């Protein structure tokens, strides 16, 4: 049991990365429009995030330095500041979207307008970050997010044509009524969702919060190897549910309410209750993950004391950052901006900034000053380098594709 609880950091990180509010809807939308023909991107994304999260976890365990320490160290103060600015903006927007997402889940459960729930959700999230121990936080929300496994159960209950799903998955090309640019736009959005930089910000900082040492390297690796593939599996199950129910009916999913419909149809009222619980836990967990990441990244760039392992007064600037981000994000959701649209855009902008975050990780993982004997092996370096090349291509293509396809229409 203790061993199992040790991997909740990986589970929470992956749920916040793979099935947060933007990804929940993006996965369902992709399933409803492209069937399983983009499944290869999710698999690629799982592999990529595993490679870099493993490196950042190893760095955290051996040197106690988290990812944004490395960003400044290797990119220098100026390029580091550019990355910080871009990351921080995306993080603040994402916090807003996740708060909105958790409020939307409560709306689905109660029928009461989501705007009513926004202040309560934001306050609860802040309170958790202010008072609750890091381990408790990751256990509660990581495990509650597992309720999303109901998507896999519902898929079985729906009794899909497995052969057809398999055929879609093995034929990576757009269906006949969709264009190639749109197909690649969503490929980038899915890859950006799988490899969002805040996952490694959070994962590596979480490792430091949990006081990982060299002895915990196997724990770090287990977190990576269980958490992220699980996140990817949930992504695929959501897409498969949408492909089964919505693709034949020509429904293009565009709301959280529609996205959970296949579960309700497949697994009934209990399924509906579980999926709403899962969506709430995932988006609330993602709120914590992203808001903490904003504090982590700013503090790590400037060298401030950060973390929940000290009393709040000892990390005053860190906690102040989180408080301000939560307040600004809440104000942003209350303007009635569509939370789902916010994350879909920020996913693509995040994709454009990916190399700026992952290159320093790859460099430091090879630096004996930090890593002593635990530097990358040939396997990690080969995969890491291949992904760097892919990420550079993606970052160049992201914004032009977004403009050319009018954000995927």
């Amino acid at each position, binding site marked *: 049991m203790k061993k199992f609880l040790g991997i909740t950091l990986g589970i929470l990180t992956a749920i916040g990365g793979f099935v947060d509010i933007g990804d929940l809807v993006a996965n369902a939308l992709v399933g409803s429009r492209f069937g399983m023909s983009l499944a290869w991107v999710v698999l690629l994304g799982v592999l990529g995030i595993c490679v870099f999260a493993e490196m950042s976890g190893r760095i955290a365990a051996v040197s106690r330095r988290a990812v944004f320490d490395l960003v400044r160290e290797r990119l220098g103060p100026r390029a580091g500041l550019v990355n910080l600015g871009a990351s921080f903006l995306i993080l603040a927007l994402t916090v807003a979207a996740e708060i909105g997402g958790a409020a939307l889940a409560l*709306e*689905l*459960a*109660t*029928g*009461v307008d989501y*705007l009513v729930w926004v202040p309560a959700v934001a306050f609860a999230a802040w309170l958790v970050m202010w008072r609750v121990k890091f381990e408790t936080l990751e256990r509660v929300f990581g495990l509650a997010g597992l309720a999303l496994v109901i998507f896999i159960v519902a898929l079985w209950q729906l009794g899909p044509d497995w052969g057809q799903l398999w055929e879609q998955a093995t034929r990576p090309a757009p269906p006949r009524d969709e264009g190639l640019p749109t197909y690649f736009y969503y490929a980038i959005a899915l890859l950006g969702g799988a490899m969002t930089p805040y996952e490694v910000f959070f994962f590596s900082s979480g490792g430091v919060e949990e006081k990982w040492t060299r002895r915990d390297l196997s724990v770090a690796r287990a977190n990576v190897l269980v958490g992220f593939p699980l996140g990817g599996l949930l992504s695929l199950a959501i897409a498969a549910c949408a492909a089964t*129910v*919505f693709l034949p*009916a*020509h*429904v*293009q999913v*565009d*709301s959280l*309410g*529609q996205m*959970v*419909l296949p579960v*309700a*149809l497949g697994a*009934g*009222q209990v399924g*509906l*209750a579980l999926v*709403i619980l899962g969506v709430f836990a995932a988006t609330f967990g993602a709120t914590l993950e992203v808001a903490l990441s904003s504090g982590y990244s700013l503090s790590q760039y400037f060298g401030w004391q950060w973390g929940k392992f000290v009393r709040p007064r000892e990390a005053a600037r860190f906690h102040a950052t989180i408080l301000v981000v939560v307040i600004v994000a809440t104000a942003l959701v209350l303007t*009635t901006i*569509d939370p789902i*649209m916010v994350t879909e855009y920020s996913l693509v902008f995040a994709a454009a900034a990916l190399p700026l975050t992952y290159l320093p990780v790859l460099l430091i993982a090879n630096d004996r000053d930090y890593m002593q004997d635990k530097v990358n092996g040939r396997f990690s370096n080969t995969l890491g380098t291949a992904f760097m090349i892919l990420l550079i291509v993606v970052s160049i293509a992201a914004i032009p594709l977004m403009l050319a396809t*009018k*954000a995927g*229409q």
Partner: protein
Amino acid sequence: MRRRWAAGLAVALVAGCSSPAWNDRDYELKAAESAEAVGSAVEAVRLAVGGDGRLTRPYLKVLLTGAAEQVQGVNDQFGGVQPPSERARRLGERLLEVTERAEKAVAGLLTEVRRDRVADPAGAVRELAGLGRTLRRFQEEHG
């Protein structure tokens, strides 16, 4: 009000209806996009109403509210586009006749759910399926 604003914005982005139609073909494409958007909402409602017994009332209410706003938003947007010619005007009217029926059907279901539950699920499913088919055909002919 807020909802309508949000739905309107979404539709403006989704269907690209915010600009005037330059020529017949442009108008026709806008019509096809609107048919697709309304068709998507109608089909989603059909699936939900078909599984009525398996859904909770608050959930069904939220889902129908979203669909009703989406359909209404598309109608408002498309209705606001000036047809460039007489032929285009007739095309637009033909579409709006169907989408307005869809709007009424979804709004009617929403009222029923607000009060209690869908009175005649099977009948509603038949009606929505018919609307969905018509819209799909329209979209394929003109898209």
